[in-house]
């Protein structure tokens, strides 16, 4: 038996990064549990908060905004953090444990493109979830669209990239999917605290506010809140997020392990 295989027609060749990102996105969509937690949970929280009349009244403490108005930016940060710090490290570490990465290592793809593809695929999911949150809040519960829309989009993207780079870093340095999941969760709760999930940042004591500004999620929620209210995010917020993205992104690529 002779195996004569022709080359693949040029028209069918695609970019490795694009194809890998698209494939990862498809795989994400096939994992029901990940959809429920990564996408469903933030939307469900918006619905629950929106349905409780108490949370839907303008409050002087929030400058006349409702509790839900304050929570939409937090939910956008929440969905990005949930995906970046729990789903992403667990999945990459799982790939490593099962030898998926080991097989990729024998191909010309290289670590940077593997990480970049994960980033792109998860970014697409976060973008979709964020849009769904904003639309749901607007049309379900009358929360105004972000008044500084461009600022909101830039802040959301930068926040997602910064958090994912932290997630990729965890996946790169922590051995094993269980340990990666635990580390992600351990980071997730304090970061969500400083993002104002339990206590809005504006209501925090001064010291906690300072710490909050220095965390990626705190800076993100501040920037998102500012843009929702019609202000351009401050440079400090954007630079804080970008610094986290660059530092952890480079570290993730540097210490990435195939096995």
């Amino acid at each position, binding site marked *: *038996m*002779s*195996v*004569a*295989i*022709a*080359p*693949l*027609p040029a028209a*069918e*060749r*695609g*970019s*490795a990064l*694009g*194809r*890998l990102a698209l*494939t990862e996105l*498809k*795989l994400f969509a*096939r*994992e029901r549990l990940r959809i429920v937690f990564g996408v469903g949970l933030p939307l469900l929280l918006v619905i629950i908060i929106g349905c409780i009349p108490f949370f839907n009244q303008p409050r002087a403490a929030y400058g006349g905004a409702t509790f839900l108005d304050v929570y939409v930016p937090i939910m956008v940060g929440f969905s990005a953090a949930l995906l970046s710090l729990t789903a992403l490290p667990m999945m990459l570490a799982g*790939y490593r444990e*099962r*030898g*998926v990465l*080991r*097989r990729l*290592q*024998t*191909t*010309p*793809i*290289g670590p940077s493109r593997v990480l970049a593809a994960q980033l792109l695929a998860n970014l697409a999911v976060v973008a979709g979830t964020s849009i769904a949150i904003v639309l749901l809040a607007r049309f379900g519960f009358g929360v105004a669209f972000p008044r500084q829309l461009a600022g909101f989009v830039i802040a959301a993207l930068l926040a997602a990239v910064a958090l994912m780079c932290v997630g990729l870093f965890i996946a790169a340095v922590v051995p094993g999917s269980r340990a990666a999941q635990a580390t992600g969760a351990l980071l997730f709760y304090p970061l969500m605290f400083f993002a104002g999930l339990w206590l809005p940042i504006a209501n925090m004591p001064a010291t906690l506010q300072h710490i909050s500004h220095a965390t990626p999620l705190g800076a993100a929620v501040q920037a998102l809140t500012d843009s929702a209210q019609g202000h351009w995010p401050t440079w400090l917020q954007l630079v804080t997020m970008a610094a986290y993205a660059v530092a952890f992104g480079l570290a993730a690529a540097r210490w990435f392990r*195939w096995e």
Partner: protein
Amino acid sequence: MPAVIEVQNLRRSYGDTVAVDDVTFTVQEGEIFGILGPNGAGKTTTVECIEGLRAPDSGQISVLGLDPRHDRPELTQRLGVQLQDSQLPDQLRVAEALRLNSAFYRNPADWHALMDTLGLTSKSKTPFGKLSGGQKQRLSIALALLGSPRVAVLDELTTGLDPQARRDTWELIEGVRDRGVTIVLVTHFMEEAERLCDRVALIDAGRVVAIDTPAGLAGRVEAGQRIQFRPSVPFDDALLTHLPEVTHVIHRGDVVVVTGNDNALNAVTSVLARNQIVAHQLRVDQASLEDAFLALTGKHSDSQ
């Protein structure tokens, strides 16, 4: 024929354990080169160094003129690799895996045709997690060939396959060689090495014991004989091992297998007769690669 892989004095240890002590061999273009040895002999570590997945402690390796550690981008384009145990995501479908991986290479093979050749077309939409062992194995061979490699390294290709799937895979590998791909085959199956390999390097305890054709290796057991029988009563091996004509005695269940030179049969039967032991189901074979393996490594291979 020019050499496509040159390994010289390769050494690699993990902590205190020396996996590869001193391995030297050359693979010629167009051949199927077998790396044969008992479990833990250092076969996989050797090919992992060739693939550039492990750094040798010392020694030189050249694959298609490239250094496997330093020329990784170029090496991965030209060397097809099938790993012993690697997986794909469970939800990834056969056609998707092939299409995705073909995007990684400069000169990808037509994955539709490859899928067809490997008999996977009817499974193109099946997720990896739902494939049988044989189908997974065929997919991993397809992935190893996707980049139109000049050399392919296949590690424990048919482990875990049923006999039919194993024979089908062998035919496939011969087909791949026929189109000019040099193949390095890691195995511990004698039958596989005997059937497929042009030359075999026998590795034991991290060292090359012998390199020859399968027939050449078998011939080293001095045109010997292999005698099998079921003794009527148990007996002490020393009865046979002290015979100058006998080189080895092993037990497989209640069957005794004796390896020795051309006069072994006479010597064995007369000793048995003297001790009133009847040899039931007596069978005599010429020495095979397996006997060479046994004689050269002192270990019994895993195949039965």
